């Protein structure tokens, strides 16, 4: 085995004032010539570890060695050796592509003929040749990413540190980025790639799986997924309501974890557990149990000790909403223009009661704009948005009483306590007196909320959105960056609410999460490019070379067929 390029020895980092260390007891070795993934949810310590390796933070205890150098002590030598792309890419948005490159070239001493050659090579590599005169702020997310990468590659570093390069980028650009990463590996570079997307972990040569500052696993991703091999199944051809089936399955002792996957239900069994009896689960006469390949996420759940179970205390508290199949949310030719730019362009969809409807697309596709129009927060330029038959242009406040909205990044007041937040939002939705008190107490009990905002913002945000028992729930990117167990808990509540007749609209850029929806609309550049059930969308793009496409494959194929 080759000499490790990076070695971490009982590394610890504490920040003043924080109760828990950001990183503790991390020991690992990174081999040269690989993409090493730092994988984990937000707050796991990925960025802190990156910064320790880049010499931007000093360890509180333990040691980091990068090619034999101590990053803080040997900062001068280290900077010649590494290229670093921080989150949000570290670009000057008011400088052009070329000016950004020139700045970094000057800073790194890439001059003269070497410089022109480097620019040519990197612009060609990143396919940015046509955009050298464009301001970086005017580039798409994917192009910014590539420019950030090009800047980090100036001066020919041997180790490339990329902090969450996959965030805020459409799936096509993300694939291109991975392709570029593998080309760089072939040229002899070593890459550290941090990510909260678990599907990216499977593309890495080695991974460090982190959560809350602890190292859960270090090694090849296949080694981790291998632990759940032969324990992953799909219940296919389900008759009846698959969410109820999932809840029943999760109550069984042999089931470790389960999620909705299109029309099917995906289960991970405990080690050496017998296969569940489909008859007992009332899966229907046609149901089959098919073995499926394990995913990194399955293994992560196992490392975390299994899923949270399938019963939602929240749903038990909620009253049943009318059980008709009426259309409750409707967008007709919905358009929003900001100047010349159409953020949402003639969007059409209709959602029936008790359905989970997803808007799927990369950042900047127009999901949130559409969402805000559906909630009456933005006035459409043209077209209509109806909720419960009420035109939002005419009487938005009447419609708003019937819906709950959970905004991206959870619109909570960080300097209020949990109870104060609940009191505020319940009051804002018009709850008073005894009913308000019961609702607040109920939410604290259901979500086991602690008195201070800590690691449970998503639970509190959901609590705030559902306290007034809305008929329709709007969730804007509800689970980006959270760990898979928290995500399961969240969806357990949502599934429970839907079984009570609540209608849910959700936006997500997680392709996997789209599988939890009954129907989805794929949004790209302000337009709906395809709509249907997850299975329909995937099958519509299946071909001889890709018989079983993933949701991401389907998305990419649909975008490319548009061009």
């Amino acid at each position: 085995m080759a000499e490790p390029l990076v070695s971490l020895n009982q590394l610890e980092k504490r920040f003043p004032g924080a109760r828990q260390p950001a990183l503790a007891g991390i020991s690992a070795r990174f081999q040269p010539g690989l993409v090493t993934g730092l994988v984990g949810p937000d707050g796991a310590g990925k960025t802190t570890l990156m910064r320790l390796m880049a010499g931007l933070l000093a360890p509180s205890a333990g040691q980091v060695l990068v090619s034999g150098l101590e990053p803080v002590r040997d900062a001068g030598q280290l900077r010649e050796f590494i290229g670093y792309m921080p989150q949000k890419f570290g670009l000057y948005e008011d400088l052009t592509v070329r000016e950004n490159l020139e700045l970094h070239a000057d800073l790194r001493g890439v001059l003269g003929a070497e410089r022109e050659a480097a620019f040519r090579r990197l612009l060609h590599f990143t396919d940015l040749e046509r955009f050298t005169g464009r301001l970086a702020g005017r580039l798409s997310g994917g192009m910014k990413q590539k420019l950030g990468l090009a800047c980090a590659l100036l001066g020919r570093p041997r180790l490339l540190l990329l902090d969450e390069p996959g965030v805020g980028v459409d799936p096509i650009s993300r694939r291109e980025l991975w392709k570029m990463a593998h080309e760089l590996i072939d040229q002899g570079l070593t890459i550290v790639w941090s990510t909260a997307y678990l599907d990216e972990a499977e593309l890495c040569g080695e991974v460090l799986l982190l959560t809350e500052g602890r190292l859960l696993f270090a090694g090849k991703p296949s080694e981790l997924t291998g632990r759940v091999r032969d324990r992953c199944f799909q219940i296919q051809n389900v008759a009846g309501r698959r969410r109820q089936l999932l809840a029943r399955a999760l109550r069984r002792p042999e089931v470790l974890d389960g999620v909705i996957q299109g029309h099917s239900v995906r289960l991970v069994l405990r080690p050496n557990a017998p296969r569940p009896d489909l008859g007992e689960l009332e899966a229907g006469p046609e149901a089959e149990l098919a073995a499926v390949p394990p995913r990194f996420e399955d293994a992560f759940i196992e490392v975390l000790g299994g899923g949270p179970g399938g019963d939602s205390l929240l749903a038990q508290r909620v009253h049943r909403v009318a059980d008709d199949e009426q259309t409750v949310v409707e967008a007709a030719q919905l358009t929003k223009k900001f100047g010349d730019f159409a953020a949402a362009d003639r969007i059409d969809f209709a959602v029936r009661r008790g359905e989970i409807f997803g808007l799927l697309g990369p950042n900047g596709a127009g999901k949130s704009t559409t969402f805000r129009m559906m909630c009456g927060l933005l006035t459409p330029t043209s077209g209509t948005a109806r909720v419960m038959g009420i035109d939002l242009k005419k009487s938005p406040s009447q419609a708003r009483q019937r819906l709950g909205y959970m905004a991206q990044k959870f619109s909570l007041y960080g300097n209020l306590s949990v109870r104060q937040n609940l009191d505020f939002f319940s009051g804002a939705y018009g709850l008073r007196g005894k009913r308000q008190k019961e609702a607040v107490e109920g939410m604290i009990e259901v979500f086991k909320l602690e008195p201070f905002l800590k690691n449970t913002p998503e639970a509190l945000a959901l609590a705030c959105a559902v306290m007034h028992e809305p008929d329709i729930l709007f969730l804007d990117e509800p689970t980006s960056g959270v760990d898979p167990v928290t995500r399961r808990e969240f969806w357990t509540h949502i599934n429970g609410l839907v079984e009570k007749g609540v209608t849910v609209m959700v936006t997500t850029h997680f392709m996997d999460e789209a599988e939890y929806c009954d129907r989805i609309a794929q949004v790209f550049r302000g337009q709906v490019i395809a709509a249907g059930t997850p299975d329909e969308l995937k099958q519509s793009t299946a071909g001889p070379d890709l018989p079983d496409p993933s949701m991401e494959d389907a998305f990419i194929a649909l975008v490319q067929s548009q061009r």
Partner: protein
Amino acid sequence: MKLRASFRRLRALSRKETLQILRDPSSNIIAFLLPVIMLFIFGYGISLDSTGLRVGLVLEDSGPEARHFADSLYGSPYLRVSTGRNRQEMGQAMTAGRVRGFVVVPEDFAEKLNRPGTTAPLLVITDGGEPNTANFVENYVRSAFELWLSQRALERGEAPAASVSIEPRFWFNPTAESRNYLIPGSITIIMTVIGALLTSLVVAREWERGTMEALLASPVTRAELLLSKLLPYYALGIISLFICVAVAVWLLGVPFRGSLLALWLTGSLFLGSALGLGLLLSTATRNQFNAAQAALNAAFLPAVILSGFIYEIRSMPPIIQAVTYLVPARYFVSAMQTLFQAGDVWPALWPSLVFLAVAGLFFIALTALKTRRRLD
């Protein structure tokens, strides 16, 4: 502490900073348009002189002496006089704000005037709700009356024995136009905005946008970082200073008696302290909003209130007077007033220049200490 700098990197960073300034509309407005607007506001809008004060007059004595005095009031350039029938009518006019005060010439005016040893026979009623204006009214009426008395004595061939005549003569600002000392003061405000407020945002902005992290991971040194922030904004401030002075001299007609060299030296030293403070706040807060708030309180407000620009320092309570000695703007105001109104009077300039230099070095050194090559 080691401060190394490579010319190449410094030039690259300064170039970047300059491009950002040129492309940022708000920087341009603050540096080039704001000075002109502010100078016009201070030059024309705010004037501490009073001309054309609206004053009422009630003549209860209709004799020739009373009417003679009334004529002299009508002739005053400082007063715009309207006559009323009685005190009630004038009182209502003042309540309604149509006049700032009124003068009553009582029935026994002529009688008392000609009887030696009696008190002033005039009644002046002013609006105490605006004490400043009330003072103006009182003083202008008083001086008009005294002028009339002495002229009357002169006409009769008497010596104006009873009243003491004060003949004011203003040095350095012979016509005592407030514009001439407000303009140097307002240049101080402009320099403070550019120096402290604008620069307080720039380092914080780099932290907020994540570009600082990318810079820190490159071979940039602390000295380069600091100088690349100082130099472009220094240039911006100096250009703005010369624009201010040009506007003041050529458009507003304010005399400038100093030399350009002395102006440049004074301006540079003050900019040093303002930039230093702005960068210090920006570096310490790493947040644009907090940095701007801090700069407003630490630089802008003291420059307005404690610099002696509008409020006379000698009329402040002793503790506040002591505090003003710590405000760089105070020294700049004083130096600028010297340069505008008196010229290169070095003995008057030196103390201010020395303090400004010390303040600048102090803030910049503190910023250098606070600037880290790391994030923690």
